[in-house]
C-alpha cells in the first residue's frame, strides 16, 4: 500500500427498533446492517499485517480477510472464510461480547474507532441465509469412529460440527426437547431469534450429525454405558443449576429463578400463551436481582410482558457485568436500575404470593479479591419495595447429574468438571469437556473456543495420537 488512507473513525451504527416501540414486542431489537452500511464499515479496516483482532478471537477467524471481502462486495467468499472457523456466525454476530474479544484489541480502538467486527459478521451470516442456498462442505469418508456429544449448546454444537467434518460419526444427546442450550432456553427472541438458532442446528443435522433430544445423560443412560458404544465423549452440559440467595421468602409464589422465567418465555414460548400452552404470569412490578446479561434479559422480558421492571444490583453501574450494549438497551427501554441495593427478604400476601421485597442500601468500600470495590451495607437503610414478582439472576453452577454418575470424573469445588485448558481432556479416559460446565457461566464464544480445542484433541486421539 503506497497511498496512505485517511482514517475513518466513525463506527457505523446498526439500525434498531426505537425503544418506545420495541419495549412492547418480542421482535429482534437490531435490524442489522444494510449492504451499504456493511461495506462502508468494512472499508474502515486498515488490514493490519499483525492483526490483533485474530489473536483475541477464541476460534481464530481470519478477520481482516473476511472484512476485505465485504469491502469488495464479495459476500459469498466472506462467509466462507468465517465458516472455516466458526460454524455459528449468525449467533456469534449477535451475542458475542466483541468488545471484550476482537474489537477490544482492534488497532483502531486507540482512537475509539474500533471496527464493528461483530456487526459485519452478522451481516454476512444473514446475507447467506437470504440467498436461500448454503454451500455444503464435503464430508470425508467415515473413519470408523463414533463420538458422543453431551449437551446441544454452543460447546457441543461446535464439537459436533468440527468432528463430522473430519469424518467421524457424531451423536448429540440433549436433555431438553430442542438443541441450542442457553441459546434456545435462555437468550430471548428479541436478542436472538430462535429461527436463527434452528437454522444453524438444521445445518449441522444436514451434515449428518445424529441427534437424540429428551435424553438426560446420567438418568436415561450413564456416561459409562454410552462409552461402551462410542470411542470418545465430549461433555458440554453447561452451567444450568440456578443459585438462590437463600434469604427468607424465596419460595413464595412469584419468585423465580432466571432459568425458570426465561425457559417459560423462550423454550416454551410463554409469551405466545395460549397458542403455546405454557403460562407466564403478566406481573405488574417485577424486580430482577443481579447485574449480568441474564439479569438484563429477564428485566427486558418483563418489560415486554407489560410490567414495570427494575434491576436490583448490589454494586454500582460501573461494576455491572452485562455487556454495555445490553445495559444501554435496557436503559433506553425504561428498565429502572436500583444500584447499591441488596434484597434481604421477601414478604408474601395471604395466598402465598410475594408482595414486597425488603432491601438494604449499600455503599462501596475497599476493593475485594476481584478488584472491584466491595459493597458494604448502610445500617438502618432498609426499605420495602412493592413487587409482585422477583427474578433471581445471581448465577448458575454446573448441574451435578453427570458428575455424580460418572465415577472417576474429577470435579472442582463448584461442581465444575476439571478439564485441561488446552485440550479439554478430563481425568477420565475417553472423556473430554468444555464450555460452561468447565468454566462456570461464561460466554458463547468461549464455549465454542473450548469445543474447538477439544475437537482437535479428540480427533488426534481417534486417529491414533494421544490427544496432546
Amino acid at each position: 500500500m503506497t497511498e496512505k488512507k485517511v482514517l475513518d473513525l466513525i463506527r457505523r451504527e446498526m439500525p434498531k427498533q426505537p425503544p418506545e416501540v420495541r419495549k412492547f414486542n418480542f421482535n429482534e431489537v437490531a435490524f442489522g446492517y444494510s449492504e451499504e452500511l456493511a461495506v462502508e464499515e468494512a472499508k474502515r479496516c486498515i488490514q493490519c499485517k499483525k492483526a490483533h483482532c485474530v489473536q483475541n478471537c477464541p476460534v481464530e477467524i481470519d478477520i481482516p480477510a473476511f472484512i476485505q471481502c465485504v469491502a469488495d462486495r464479495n459476500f459469498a467468499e466472506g462467509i466462507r472464510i468465517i465458516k472455516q472457523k466458526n460454524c455459528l456466525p449468525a449467533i456469534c454476530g449477535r451475542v458475542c461480547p466483541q468488545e471484550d474479544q476482537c474489537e477490544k484489541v482492534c488497532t483502531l480502538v486507540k482512537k475509539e474507532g474500533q471496527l464493528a467486527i461483530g456487526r459485519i459478521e452478522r451481516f454476512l451470516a444473514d446475507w447467506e441465509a437470504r440467498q436461500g442456498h448454503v454451500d455444503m462442505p464435503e464430508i470425508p469418508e467415515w473413519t470408523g469412529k463414533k463420538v458422543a456429544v453431551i449437551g446441544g449448546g454452543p460447546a457441543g454444537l461446535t464439537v459436533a460440527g468440527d468432528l463430522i467434518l473430519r469424518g467421524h460419526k457424531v451423536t448429540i444427546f440433549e436433555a431438553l426437547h430442542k438443541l441450542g442450550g442457553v441459546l434456545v432456553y435462555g437468550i430471548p427472541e428479541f436478542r436472538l431469534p430462535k429461527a436463527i438458532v434452528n437454522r444453524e442446528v438444521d445445518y449441522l443435522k444436514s451434515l449428518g450429525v445424529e441427534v437424540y433430544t429428551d435424553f438426560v445423560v446420567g438418568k436415561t443412560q450413564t456416561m459409562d454405558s454410552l462409552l461402551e458404544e462410542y470411542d470418545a465423549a465430549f461433555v458440554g452440559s453447561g452451567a444450568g443449576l440456578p443459585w438462590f440467595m437463600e434469604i427468607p421468602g424465596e419460595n413464595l409464589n412469584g419468585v423465580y429463578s432466571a432459568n425458570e422465567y426465561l425457559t417459560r418465555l423462550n423454550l416454551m414460548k410463554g409469551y405466545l400463551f395460549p397458542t403455546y400452552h405454557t403460562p407466564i404470569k403478566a406481573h405488574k412490578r417485577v424486580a430482577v436481582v443481579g447485574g449480568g446479561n441474564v439479569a438484563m434479559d429477564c428485566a427486558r422480558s418483563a418489560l415486554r410482558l407489560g410490567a414495570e421492571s427494575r434491576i436490583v444490583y448490589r454494586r454500582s453501574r460501573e461494576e455491572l457485568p452485562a455487556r454495555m450494549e445490553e445495559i444501554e438497551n435496557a436503559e433506553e427501554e425504561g428498565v429502572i436500575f436500583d444500584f447499591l441495593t441488596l434484597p434481604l427478604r421477601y414478604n408474601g400476601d395471604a395466598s402465598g404470593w410475594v408482595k414486597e421485597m425488603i432491601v438494604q442500601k449499600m455503599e462501596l468500600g475497599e476493593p475485594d479479591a476481584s478488584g472491584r470495590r466491595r459493597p458494604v451495607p448502610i445500617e438502618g437503610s432498609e426499605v420495602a419495595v412493592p413487587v409482585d414478582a422477583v427474578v433471581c439472576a445471581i448465577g448458575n453452577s454446573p448441574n451435578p447429574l453427570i458428575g455424580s454418575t460418572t465415577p472417576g470424573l474429577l470435579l472442582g469445588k463448584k461442581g465444575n468438571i476439571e478439564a485441561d485448558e488446552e485440550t479439554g481432556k478430563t481425568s477420565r479416559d475417553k472423556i473430554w469437556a468444555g464450555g460452561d460446565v468447565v468454566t462456570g457461566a461464561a460466554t458463547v464464544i468461549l464455549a465454542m473456543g473450548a469445543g474447538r480445542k477439544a475437537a482437535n484433541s479428540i480427533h488426534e486421539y481417534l486417529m491414533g495420537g494421544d490427544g496432546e
Partner: protein
Amino acid sequence: MYKIIASRMIVPNMHILTIEAPVIARQVQAGQFIILRAEEEGERIPLSVSDWDRARGTITTIFMNIGSTTSRLSQLASGSFIPTVVGPLGNASEIEHFGTVLLIGGCYGIGSLYPVARAMKEKGNRVLVVIEARSSYLFFWEDRYRVLVDKLLHITRDGSKGLKGHIGRIPEILTALDEPVHRVLINGCTFCLKRGSDATRELGIKTVVDLNPIMIDGTGMCGVCRVSVGGMTKFACVQGPEFDGHEVDWAELAQRRKSYMAEEVIPLRTSKCEEHAHQSEEVS
C-alpha cells in the same frame, strides 16, 4: 417422536397410557417419573411411571384428566405420536428390607404405587396396601394388587367399599392391624400426602411421600419444583420426588402448586380430594 401403544380410560376421569420408549423402559425403577409434551405447542408435564415392560420397550402411566395437557393426552388414540418423553427422572424409591410396609395410594397414586409394591415385595417385605378413592367404582388394578401383596384394604369417601372416609382414617387401620408397621409410603395428590403424613406423625412411623410440584425441565435447571423439607430448600425433580412426609412444608407446597390455577392450566396431579373431603366432613 414417541408412539402411543395403548390409551384408554381406566375409570371415570382417569386415563392409562402406554408409550413406546425403549431407552426409558430399560432404566426406569419404582418411584421415578417422566416428563412429556402432548404436542409441539404443549407444556412439559411430569407423570409418575406406573409400570413398564423392559422386553417390549414400553412404559405405562396413569393420570387424572384435569388440565389442558391431560385432556389432550387422553384424546390421543393408540398409534399416534407425541413429541417429547424424557426420563426416567428423579431418584428411585428407597427400597430395602424394612419388615412390614404400609403403602397408601390415592387416585392416580394407585397406579404409581404399584411398582413400589412390587419392588418392596421383591426385597422380602410384608406389604400391606391401602387404596383410597371417592367411591368403589374409581378403584382399578385391584386384581393386580391382590395377587401381589399380603393384604389389600380400601377406603372410600362414600363408604361403598372398605372404610368410609379418607386417608385420615389410617391410624385406625394401623391399630386394627395389630402388627408393627416399619414404614409408610404414600402416593397421590398433595392433600392425600399431607393428611396421611399428619396421621402417622404422632405414631412415630417413618412416612415417605412422593411429591408432585410443578416442574418444567425435570433436571434441576429451572427450580420451579422447589420444596422446603426440614427447613431446607430442595429441588423435587433431582433430590426427590420422595421425601420424609413429616418434614415437608405442606402449606408452602400447596400454595406453590396453585400458582398457575388462574391460567386455567391446572397443573397435573391435582385432584378434587380436598374439596370432597371437606364436603364429607361437613355432612358427617
